[in-house]
């Protein structure tokens, strides 16, 4: 069974939500039942692939041992940078190995299980915040429930441990729970329509009319793919947020009308929000601090541009090691840097940034830049170049 995809998932999601609903109304904690449901879904999703389940278990337990050990070291030995770097490296090592092995097809399916990329974020966040002194304990139940929580295990939204723990231990009044559950059901249904109806429609348009090599066809593919990607991913995220509310957890939102953004910085505040905010808090800001401390670059703007490139470059690598993802990341890095430079240096921008016509122009430009980025991301151009076309034979090219 594929989570959020197969008919059987929707059946089980509905059936297993009922007891959660009952617990919520009775003002009882939902977390232990939620833990049980998480195990049931993991079994339904991966029970037929025992090696994957084994890797998942091994990975999660490994991260837990690492985090407990680091907590101990942090408490007894203090804030030591070398230890911190080593532990952080170990926590993301499985993902790095998986990505590198993928270049050779990973025939032994090492670390191959659903959600590795997303689980790594949660573990790394804990390591970083232990170093920062924000996390002083990691109870086993909270840790495993956060890591494996079935609504967001496959593709996010990426929750944070301190927020999540607070949520599952908070006492929710009946009135609040009813509001949450109502909102959750609405978001779940909304997500189903987004993913199963709207995204499917754009996918059809894309695969019927967007497969030729003509410019018109490529443009059609680009816009249809962009909307497909949005409705598919925002739809999934909406379902994930929705069902987590029913289980008493306010999983953070992942999308907020991204296509109305007036610049690329705003776009990343509206698109895959939990990912880009993770990158902002744990990579961009820290890179910026290091660059400033070491006085790299001649001014703040140079450092910011460099930090944007590093930040988005890593985001590209995280998506995968193939050229299309790396170019996609760097494309966004360059656009963000340019945005920053224009907004700080361009007098015309400062003068007109509050004008209606100017904001609309910005929105239109941003929209097309974003769509072009998705075209890179889709790898469509590369695939077109590699597959022979009907036209080629007819023209004898």
């Amino acid at each position, binding site marked *: 069974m594929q989570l959020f995809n197969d008919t059987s998932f929707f059946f089980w999601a509905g059936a297993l939500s009922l007891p959660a609903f009952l617990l919520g109304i009775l003002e009882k904690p939902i977390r232990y039942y939620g833990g049980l449901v998480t195990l049931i879904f993991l079994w339904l999703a991966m029970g037929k692939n025992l090696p994957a389940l084994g890797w998942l278990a091994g990975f999660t337990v490994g991260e837990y041992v690492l985090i407990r050990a680091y907590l101990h070291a942090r408490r007894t030995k203090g804030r030591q940078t070398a230890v911190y770097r080593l532990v952080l490296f170990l926590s993301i090592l499985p993902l790095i190995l998986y990505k590198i092995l993928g270049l050779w097809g990973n025939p032994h399916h090492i670390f191959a299980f659903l959600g590795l990329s997303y689980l790594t974020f949660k573990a790394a966040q804990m390591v970083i915040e232990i170093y*920062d002194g924000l996390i002083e304990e990691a109870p086993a139940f909270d840790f495993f429930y956060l890591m494996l929580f079935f609504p967001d295990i496959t593709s996010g939204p990426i929750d944070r441990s301190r927020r999540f723990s607070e949520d599952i231990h908070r006492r929710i009044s009946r009135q609040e729970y009813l509001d949450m559950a109502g909102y959750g059901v609405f978001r779940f249904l909304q997500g189903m329509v987004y993913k199963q109806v709207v995204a499917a429609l754009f996918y059809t348009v894309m695969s019927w009319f967007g497969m030729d090599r003509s410019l018109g066809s490529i443009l059609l593919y680009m816009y249809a793919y962009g909307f497909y990607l949005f409705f598919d991913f925002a739809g999934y995220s909406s379902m994930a947020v929705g069902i987590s509310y029913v289980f008493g957890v306010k999983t953070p939102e992942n999308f907020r009308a991204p296509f109305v953004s007036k610049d690329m910085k705003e776009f990343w505040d509206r698109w895959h929000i939990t990912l880009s905010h993770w990158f902002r808090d744990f990579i961009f800001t820290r890179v910026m601090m290091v660059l400033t401390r070491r006085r790299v670059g001649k001014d703040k703007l140079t450092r910011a541009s460099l930090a944007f490139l590093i930040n988005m470059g890593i985001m590209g690598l995280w998506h995968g090691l193939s050229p299309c993802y790396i170019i996609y990341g760097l494309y966004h890095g360059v656009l963000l840097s340019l945005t920053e430079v224009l907004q700080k240096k361009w007098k015309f921008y400062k003068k007109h940034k509050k004008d209606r016509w100017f904001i609309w122009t910005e929105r239109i430009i941003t929209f097309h830049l974003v769509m072009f980025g998705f075209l890179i991301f889709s790898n469509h151009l590369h695939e077109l170049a590699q597959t022979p076309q009907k036209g080629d034979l007819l023209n004898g090219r």
Partner: protein
Amino acid sequence: MDAKNMTKEEVTEMVLDLLEDITGDEVVREERDINLLEEDLIDSLDYVELLLNVQDQLGLVIAPSELKREEMDTPNKIIQVILSRRDA
């Protein structure tokens, strides 16, 4: 410099100096409940500078992921965060 040896007024003054420097606008002194984000006076880059300066000039470490933007979006809130950190 260490905030622990400074009076509340001295810390406040120092933070306001910092904010005036970062935003380039002395309005932060007069209107201490002004929303810095909505008024476009501060952005992500400026927050980095703020955190670094707080660390260097007041000896207080605030981690980038520790606080939400809404918890640090007015001069008064920033001052409160820093004072409560000093007294922790």
